[in-house]
């Protein structure tokens, strides 16, 4: 027994010594979401296997997006790996800013990555970022409050049902709010949510000639519905709430329903963080019967900026963090409910994972999202909660601010839409559309 352990230790030491000669310190920029925080906690495993050290730069979502975009466009070279999403990857890949990931080893099994994720993280068929986790959005709701209201959540509800249920669940005196939705301005915050929602109301950002469509009736319906619903059944100060704020409210038991990223499911059902862990149900994001649901498609992925001096070590990290082994590692340490979801097909075939209450709904939500045909009427862009053009982030942040101000009661929905229409038209004209 001792001999075995000693031999193991000696082998580990030899491996470590031989790799340590080439050991690098890589700097990784990432978002402060739970799964990434978990990844940081497990970094020792990567260091033990490869000898490479990791330095983390963990930032809030909006800040991360600006930091990495600035760094890569100005060729700042601060990071060896960046956490980016489906919006940035194809645009940056096209600009030649990212190292292609088409030479990953066979055991990595690229074909195991969900096709929707692989497609969204590629440009011209070349993979430029590996998905750490993938997500769609869905309804997370309190089963006890639903029961109390005498309602039963259908698997695929309509907005009408959701709004009605939200109003019935609301008990402001006891700080129970029927629905929590993103209201904080930002293209990845409220603009993402409202854009996905608008798809189900038949709205779109641009027509086929790239003309902004905020003056349409469908947009007016979307924004008015959203504002009225949050005013009636949302928490106070909803216009300041993003993903993390709403997560915290839901975990404190203050939200009857929350429509947001599927990845939140593991946080709201985790008894050590959530006071309502055993009372959460899941359903598909709502629709209005027009054929599109209001769920999105997103992947937080790891990519290597072109020009980094530590490409080999960075690739080793990406292989480690997005591999099947990493999923096993998290499962071993934190349980199957906490593994990064939505990226690999094999996870959903795993018998251990099938029992997780949100697994089925997550996969269904991801599979029902089609970034190539996101809207009821045809559009010239790809992307569900965004339009994959370089100008989108800048425009949508400003549009999001107008929506947020409308939600806060500083202006009407119509005023916000008129401003959104004008500023989008300005920016598109400046960009040469």
């Amino acid at each position, binding site marked *: 027994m001792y001999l075995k352990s000693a031999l193991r230790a000696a082998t580990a030491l030899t491996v470590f010594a031989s790799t340590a000669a080439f050991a690098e310190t890589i700097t990784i920029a990432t978002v402060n979401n739970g799964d990434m925080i978990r990844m940081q906690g497990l970094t020792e495993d990567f260091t033990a296997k490869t000898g490479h050290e990791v330095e983390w730069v963990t930032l809030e979502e909006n800040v991360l997006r600006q930091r990495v975009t600035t760094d890569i*466009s100005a060729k700042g070279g601060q990071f060896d790996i960046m956490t980016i999403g489906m919006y940035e990857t194809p645009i940056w890949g096209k600009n030649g800013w990212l190292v292609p990931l088409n030479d990953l080893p066979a055991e990595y099994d690229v074909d195991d990555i969900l096709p929707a994720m692989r497609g969204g993280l590629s440009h011209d068929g070349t993979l430029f970022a590996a998905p750490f986790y993938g997500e769609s959005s869905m309804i997370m709701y309190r089963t006890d409050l639903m029961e109390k209201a005498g309602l039963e959540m259908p698997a695929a509800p309509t907005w009408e049902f959701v709004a009605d249920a939200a109003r019935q669940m609301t008990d402001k005196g006891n700080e129970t709010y029927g629905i929590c939705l993103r209201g904080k301005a930002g293209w990845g915050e409220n603009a993402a949510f409202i854009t996905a929602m608008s798809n189900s109301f038949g709205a779109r950002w641009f027509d086929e000639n790239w003309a902004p469509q905020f003056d349409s009736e469908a947009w007016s319906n979307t924004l008015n519905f959203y504002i009225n619903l949050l005013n009636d059944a949302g*928490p106070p100060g909803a216009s*300041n709430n993003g993903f993390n704020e709403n997560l915290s409210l839901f975990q404190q038991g203050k939200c009857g329903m929350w429509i947001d990223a599927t990845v939140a499911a593991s946080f709201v059902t985790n008894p050590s963080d959530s006071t309502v862990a055993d009372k959460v149900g899941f359903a598909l994001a709502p629709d209005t019967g027009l054929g599109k649901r209001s769920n999105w498609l997103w992947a937080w992925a790891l990519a290597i900026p072109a020009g980094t001096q530590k490409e080999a070590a960075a690739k080793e990290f990406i292989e480690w963090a997005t591999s099947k082994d990493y999923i096993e590692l998290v499962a071993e340490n934190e349980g199957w409910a906490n593994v990064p979801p939505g990226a690999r097909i094999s996870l959903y075939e795993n018998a251990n994972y099938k029992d997780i209450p949100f697994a089925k709904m997550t996969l269904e939500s991801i599979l029902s999202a089609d970034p190539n045909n996101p809207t009821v009427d045809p559009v010239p862009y790809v992307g569900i909660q965004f339009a994959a053009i*370089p*100008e989108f982030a800048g425009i949508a942040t400003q549009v999001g601010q107008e929506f947020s101000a409308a939600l806060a009661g500083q202006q009407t929905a119509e005023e916000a839409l008129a401003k959104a229409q004008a500023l989008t038209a300005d920016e598109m004209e400046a960009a040469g559309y």
Partner: protein
Amino acid sequence: MATQHSRSAARIMMAPAVILLLGWMLVPLTMTLYFSFKKYLPLRGGDLGWVGFDNYARFLSSSAFWPSVQATLTIVGGVLLITVILGVFLALLLNQPMWGQGIVRILVIAPFFVMPTVSALVWKNMFMDPVNGLFAHLWKAFGAEPVSWLSEASLQSIILIVSWQWLPFATLILLTAIQSLDSEQLEAAEMDGAPPVARFGYITLPHLSRAITVVVLIQTIFLLSIFAEIFVTTQGSFGTKTLTYLIYQRVLESQNVGLGSAGGVYAIILANIVAIFLMRIVGKNLDA
């Protein structure tokens, strides 16, 4: 008296520092000017050529420009008003003999040492949050509906946060000035039967005018470029987009370096106008 020789030696020795400082200021300024005449879109291939004054016209005609100037001036004005008035009041109070004076003074000055980002985060999450914040609990304790400070009274909230940070600075400068006030003059006025308000209006306040000028000048310079508090609390929503924030949005969020640079040039011009204006009006006090 310095000889010709020692004077040239001094010049040579100072030259590196002067050149360094000049470069420090001139390089960014020249680059801002250079980019402001270019169509420079990093996400669309970078440098797309010269565009003359296009960026300047576009920045000025954008619907966000005038509201941002207005927001900037409102914040600067609001903070100055609060810090000067409360600063005078606090300085008078702290000048009174009291038990534990040293500790009280340190406590009053303390907010100035808190980083703007940290204080903004504390205000946002611990005080102003409409569900979990201290104010919300206070409001609820009195049976009132909690206020969403940062969205319903966004500018006022930011003015409050920034004032809290700058009040110690104003107090400190004004307290120093009050301490230099000749007490005999005040006593004489008191013996002549001047009431406290008159003593304050005719003796203390004129004596403080020079210190108030310093406070206004220094704070204005810093407040014109206020950023961190807005970034942390509202990210430019709800009418809190100042000129600095607008420039940031143009350059970093919209990735339009040319347009943002033109905005930068406007900001420099605005800052200079305000500075000259202030020097003219209040600078006289410094000469007196």
